[in-house]
């Protein structure tokens, strides 16, 4: 029962009924007041006419007494005639000695003109008071009429309204409940379907009856979330597969080298070589795991940026100098130019790591005697560091993937020269963490430009 009460459609229906109840009660009340006042007005009009008739029936006797010629008139006559000075001159027999309200006051004889009151015999009457000229004498005439008929009529109206209210509410409630049930039914089916979607069926989507209504919006948003989830999941699967491959390769090398050495025996020199070769693989694994750790921490946003002012030209020069010998070995030229005063707010170590990775990449892929140009500048308010290599270029379809983990354009170029395949991923993360991005532009046979774009105001990135 408690569970039933908490469903949205029940809550909606209850809310709907409560609101309707308040509205209906207000409506009934105001209608009643309005009708009651209308009835009273009507009654006063007819009372006015009656009074006029009665006035014509009043006659003043020579002795100063008053006679009312009721003749053959039917019904009850409730009539009083007062002198202007406030004495009761005449009272009809039907009043049986009761007064129609308080005695008339001399100062303000006709007040109040109309009023309702209850006589001693429990009769509810409407009384009208009016001055009248009788010959040369001023009198005040008070006529009363029973309100019974009016009250009965009004009572029927109120009864009808009171009885109708719960019936209307019940009807509205039932209808409202089913309308809500119907409107929310797609939600139920969406929930059922969503429950069935798990890691193995991430490609499934919710079926939307009407994508344009509110539920449709919800469903669309849910489907978009699912799509992103599916994409991330695919990336994760790909990453896991790549990572295990990268981890397995050095492990395989170590294993076979060790096994062969055990089988062959051999002298100390040979064993030294074997152990050395295994240690090389261990170093490779260590580097790989170090890089994976950085990416894992970056992914979970656990690398806080140590922000400070960073001079970009100086940082680029420092990174290039670090790798200068590699370029020298290949007789490549490295040129660095740009605005010396250009600074950004950021984490020096992380930005340096990104620059080192990209310059390293440029040295690696530029041919011997090639040239590498590093340029620091601004564009549209962003700080730029462009690293142009003279490598073979990268086909457009690979551009987006260059920054993916373990991605290598040239599949054959693995390990050894190729590095861990994580450098550019880490660089990409580092620049993104600063709210920037790395753009890649390649030219036919004249190399690629990696353009690091950083916001100059040092606006915060996603993982700060």
């Amino acid at each position: 029962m408690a569970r039933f009460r908490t469903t949205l459609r029940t809550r909606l229906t209850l809310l709907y009924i409560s609101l309707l109840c308040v509205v209906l009660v207000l409506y009934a009340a105001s209608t009643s007041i309005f009708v009651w006042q209308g009835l009273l007005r009507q009654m006063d009009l007819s009372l006015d006419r009656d009074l006029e008739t009665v006035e014509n029936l009043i006659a003043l006797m020579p002795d100063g007494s008053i006679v009312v010629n009721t003749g053959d008139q039917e019904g009850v006559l409730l009539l009083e005639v007062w002198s202007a000075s406030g004495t009761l001159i005449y009272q009809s027999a039907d009043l049986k000695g009761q007064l129609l309200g308080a005695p008339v006051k001399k100062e303000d004889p006709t007040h109040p003109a109309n009023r309702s009151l209850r006589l001693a015999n429990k009769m509810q009457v409407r009384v009208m008071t009016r001055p009248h000229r009788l010959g040369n004498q001023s009198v005040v005439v008070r006529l009363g009429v029973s309100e019974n008929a009016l009250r009965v009529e009004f009572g029927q109206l109120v009864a009808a309204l009171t009885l109708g209210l719960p019936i209307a509410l019940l009807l509205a409630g039932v209808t409202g409940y089913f309308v809500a049930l119907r409107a929310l039914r797609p939600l139920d089916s969406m929930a059922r379907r969503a429950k069935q979607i798990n890691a193995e069926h991430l490609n499934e989507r919710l079926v939307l009856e009407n994508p344009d209504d509110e539920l449709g919006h919800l469903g669309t948003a849910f489907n978009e979330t699912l799509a992103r989830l599916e994409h991330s999941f695919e990336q994760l699967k790909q990453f896991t597969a790549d990572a295990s491959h990268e981890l397995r390769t050095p492990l395989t090398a170590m294993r076979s080298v060790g096994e062969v050495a055990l089988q062959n025996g051999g002298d100390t020199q040979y064993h030294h070589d074997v152990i050395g070769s295994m240690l090389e693989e261990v170093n490779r694994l260590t580097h790989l795991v170090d890089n994976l750790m950085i990416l894992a921490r970056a992914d979970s946003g656990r690398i806080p940026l140590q922000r400070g002012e960073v001079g970009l030209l100086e940082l680029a020069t420092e990174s290039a100098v670090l790798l200068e010998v590699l370029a020298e070995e290949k007789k490549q030229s490295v040129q660095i130019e740009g605005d010396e005063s250009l600074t950004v707010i950021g984490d020096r170590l992380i930005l340096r790591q990104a620059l080192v990775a990209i310059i390293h990449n440029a040295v690696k892929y530029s041919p011997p005697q090639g040239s590498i140009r590093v340029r620091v500048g601004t564009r549209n308010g962003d700080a730029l560091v462009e690293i142009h290599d003279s490598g073979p270029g990268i086909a457009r379809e690979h551009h987006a993937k260059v920054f993916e983990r373990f991605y290598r354009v040239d599949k054959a170029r693995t390990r050894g020269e190729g590095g861990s395949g994580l450098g550019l991923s880490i660089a990409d993360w580092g620049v993104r963490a600063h709210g920037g991005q790395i753009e890649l532009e390649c030219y036919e046979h004249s190399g690629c430009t990696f353009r690091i774009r950083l916001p100059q105001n040092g606006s915060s990135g996603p993982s700060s």
Partner: protein
Amino acid sequence: MKILIVEDEPKVGKALTEGLKANGDEVTLAQTGEDGFFLASSHSFDLIVLDVMLPGRSGIEVLKTLRKQGLQVPVLLLTAKDSIEDRVLGLDAGADDYLVKPFAFPELRARLRALLRRGKTETIVSLKLGTLEMDLTTRLVTRDARPIELTVREFELLEFLLRNKGRVVSREMLARDVWKESNRATPLDNVIDVHIARLRRKVDDEFERKLVRTVRGVGFMLSEDER
């Protein structure tokens, strides 16, 4: 030198023990935090190598308690977590140095030597190996009395190798101590190899007796012995 190793992983513990014993040190191995704490507080050691991840009582807790009891022995922490918070946590607890697993054994030895040397002022003004001489004040390097021109980086590299002569120096140590690179992910291996090759050209090429040696899979060593 008496060294206490607290390490729960048997293979690592055994390798460390044997490696340091081969070096002529007296080594005690404890496999739990409790044992380590008991040994450290009841015996006197010159150095303690303490693993952070220990069953029961963590290395950090052991270290804090030891320091609270006023134990002044230099402590080197071994940690598998390479993040700034972990380092700060370890150093705050009273560690003198830390090393991230996996580490190169020569680096561990170098760190331990550095810890023992700590506080002692060095007055070395020149380094020497065979006929190779390095004057640290004039920055003059000679072999067989013939001067050798070195760049600043090459000088620093040779100085580091000379200070560690007869011992293997890993690329990690060079990256950290010569290149002052704190980030393990920076790809310096190729850079270091090129510098070593250049140094070798200048120091060894014209001489019959080669001094710069490559120890495959580990690093480099400056030594007069052929092996």
